[in-house]
């Protein structure tokens, strides 16, 4: 029997849309899960533009609806994925006035996410074999 060697790749994902307003975040989440189930690595997910709303810790959908923020948190905790929220994008949306409000921002975001800059995306893209962008309908 011939066994085909399966390529194991490193993925970096960017999410640019808010949960509940378009499907991009859920598509990215399901892609990340499928990739890891196939033995690939998803090192970092970068939340940019309206994608930063995926990190709002106070998100509280009804119990019979998907909790998108919770899904990301669970994935980050279970699989040790780095979920990075763009600081400039959150400042543009009024979550904080300056980067020195970082402590306040950390209180806003859900478990498993962290605030940082666009350089984190560049770093992830350089190290990844594949980069994918989701939810760009803005």
């Amino acid at each position, binding site marked *: 029997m011939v066994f085909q060697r399966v390529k194991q790749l490193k993925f970096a994902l960017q999410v640019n849309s808010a949960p509940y307003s378009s499907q*991009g975040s859920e598509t990215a989440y399901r*892609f990340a899960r499928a990739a890891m189930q196939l033995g690939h690595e998803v090192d970092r997910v970068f939340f940019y533009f309206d994608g930063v709303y995926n990190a709002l810790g106070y998100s509280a959908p009804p119990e019979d609806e998907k909790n998108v923020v919770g899904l990301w948190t669970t994935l980050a905790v279970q699989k040790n994925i780095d979920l990075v929220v763009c600081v400039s994008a959150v400042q543009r949306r009024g979550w904080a006035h300056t980067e020195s409000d970082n402590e306040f921002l950390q209180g806003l975001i859900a478990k498993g996410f962290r605030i940082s800059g666009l350089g984190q995306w560049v770093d992830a893209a350089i190290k990844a*074999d*594949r980069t*994918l962008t989701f939810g760009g309908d*803005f």
Partner: protein
Amino acid sequence: MLHLVNFPLSEAEAAKRILGRVAPKDVLLFIENGVCALDSGAPGAREIDSLAEVVEIYALLPDLKARGIGAASLLQCVQTIDYTGFVTLAVENGPVQSWFR
């Protein structure tokens, strides 16, 4: 190259913009609302059908199901895949280019 399209290509300008950049042996994957363009009765379906002579065309099955597009109305040139297939396409056809409206 794998092209991801997440909006219906029936809009003439978008169709021209994206389909004009697809090279032979590229792969097109329609996801989210993009799958709506793959209904054989949708505007622009003929353009997509003719494109299948040079590129492989796929659609994400859960997104087709969510929009009520079944095998009977799906363009014959379209192959359906699940998320595992999506990952495999990305692995085998990098880099991946997302197209948005």
